[in-house]
């Protein structure tokens, strides 16, 4: 830890302050009838010793900062140091200037004043040091805390990404297994799609931004795999507004939303499930709407959100510190999920 004196500005202030102290004391002593040179020697010895003690305290506090109720210790230490200072000062001054007529009396009389001024000064220096070191410590603590938060956030994002549904993976492998016997060409194709999809999941960073067209390509892989799994039951319609493909969004955000819609749609209805995807621009933001059919009689929309949107919501919050970017609504038997992606000028690639 740095002492306050390691900053040049403070060092200069400190030196000037000390010179002023000396000058002041010389003037006062002269006023009380001492010769200039005697006053100067007195002040020099006095203040040099006091300076030493102040530096000692300042340095010690670097390693030992009082907590809570220990301030009484600090007070006693200051008191103790001031007494020592007084004793030494008196002894040194006695040796140096004792021969001068009338000096000893003046010294004797001024002891209480010297003591209180020194005590006040030492107290002030101590308090300033404590405040300084506390503030430094606070800064370091804040730094650590924000580092820890950043790490935690990254870890959380990583975990959210890892939640790639094992269900999806094992079922896809099962489909491939079935295709190998009957339609090996298709099996091969699906292995390729599944690999590309998984690679996409692994290589992208959660904090990375990608263009909508890139994300849509990745989504297409997912949709193709799901279509093989569910056959005719799954139908999709994608409607992309011309202005949107180059807009950006956080990587791997779209797929979990569509996955949620597919699961919700497929497991809540029998018959064909149509998943609709639409994108457009509103107030400069990218808007994406995914809709799926559901049965209002057997599931409440509230339950529907529980499926897989929570982690999307959490990600959006971690990225934008906003909770209003993901909206779900149920219209008759259609469940609609809308995400708004702010296109901040500062968003990085």
């Amino acid at each position, binding site marked *: 830890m740095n002492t306050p004196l390691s900053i040049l500005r403070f060092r200069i202030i400190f030196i000037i302050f000390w010179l002023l102290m000396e000058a002041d004391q010389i003037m006062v002593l002269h006023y009380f009838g001492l010769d200039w040179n005697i006053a100067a020697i007195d002040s020099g010895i006095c203040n040099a010793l006091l300076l030493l003690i102040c530096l000692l305290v300042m340095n010690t506090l670097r390693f030992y900062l009082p907590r809570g109720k220990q301030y009484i210790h600090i007070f006693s230490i200051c008191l103790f140091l001031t007494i020592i200072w007084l004793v030494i000062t008196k002894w040194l001054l006695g040796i140096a200037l004792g021969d001068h007529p009338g000096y000893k009396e003046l010294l004797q009389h001024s002891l209480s004043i010297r003591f209180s001024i020194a005590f006040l000064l030492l107290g002030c220096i101590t308090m300033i040091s404590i405040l300084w070191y506390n503030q430094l410590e606070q800064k370091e603590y804040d730094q650590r805390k924000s580092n820890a938060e950043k790490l935690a956030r990254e870890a959380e994002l990583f975990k959210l990404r890892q939640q790639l549904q*094992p*269900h999806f993976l*094992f*079922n896809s*492998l*099962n*489909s*491939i*297994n*079935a*295709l190998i*016997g*009957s339609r090996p060409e298709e099996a091969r194709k699906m292995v390729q799609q599944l690999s590309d999809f998984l690679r996409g999941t692994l290589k992208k960073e959660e904090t990375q931004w990608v263009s909508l067209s890139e994300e849509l390509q990745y989504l297409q892989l997912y949709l193709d795999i799901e279509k*093989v*799994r*569910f*056959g005719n*039951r799954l139908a999709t319609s994608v409607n992309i507004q011309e202005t949107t493909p180059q807009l950006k969004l956080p990587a791997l955000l779209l797929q979990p939303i569509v996955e949620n819609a597919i699961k919700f749609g*497929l*497991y*809540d*209805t*029998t018959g064909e499930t149509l998943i609709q995807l639409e994108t457009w621009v509103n107030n400069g933001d990218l808007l994406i709407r995914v809709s799926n059919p559901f*049965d209002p*009689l*057997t*599931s*409440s929309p509230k*339950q529907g959100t529980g499926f897989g949107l929570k982690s999307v919501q959490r990600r959006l919050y971690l990225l934008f510190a906003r909770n209003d970017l993901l909206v779900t609504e149920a219209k008759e038997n259609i469940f609609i999920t809308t995400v708004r992606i702010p296109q901040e000028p500062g968003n990085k690639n």
Partner: protein
Amino acid sequence: MKVIIIDDEPLARSIVKEYLQKHPELEIVQECSDGFEGLKAIQQHEPDLIFLDIQMPKITGFEMLELIEQPPSVIFTTAFDEYAIKAFEAHAVDYLLKPFNQERFDKAISKWMEQSTKGKNTQELLEAAALSPSQNQRIVVKNGSKIKIIPVQDVFYLEAADDYVKIHTSEGYFLKNKTMNHFEQSLDKEQFVRSHRSYIVNIQQITRIDPYEKDNHVAILRNGTKVPVSRNGYVRLREVLGL
């Protein structure tokens, strides 16, 4: 012997079909893509063995089995379901984890052939599976020939009725062949409270609780129904309501 395959994914059914070719004594009488179809097919064909997926549209494989008086032998096929697997292992029911190969499949078949207790463990299995969190959001009942799915928040209260439990909703009541203890355990304890030996009440439906005779209380529901509250039930209710 008759076999039915119930799975919502066509390719998942076809692999079972393929593996069954090695077992000519087993005849596939029907393939079904959801629990409703499965239920109908089972009642119609009375199969000896079914291959059953768990996660399927509308009702799960477990929920479908609950609706059958005497379930046939089941070999479960599932991709990934922690709770189900726990339940299977606890009750020594055979299950196939997707993807599985012919060898593993044959083993399941021969194990089933040797078993003398065919289909016996199913009831206990269902009790265990019902405790999984994915299954306590709704109650599936049979209403005549129709299947009714009741989201738990629509339930007013449950009432014991001999071997059945009466599930009271805005549409009247439905009967389910389960015990009060089963529901007390499987339903969300923050929402459903056993107010009385014979009653479990949805606390979201309660508008007030009045004293009733000596030591007893009665809960008045939104629709005006009065549900008895015993002394112990009153303690439990106060706990959950934070009074």
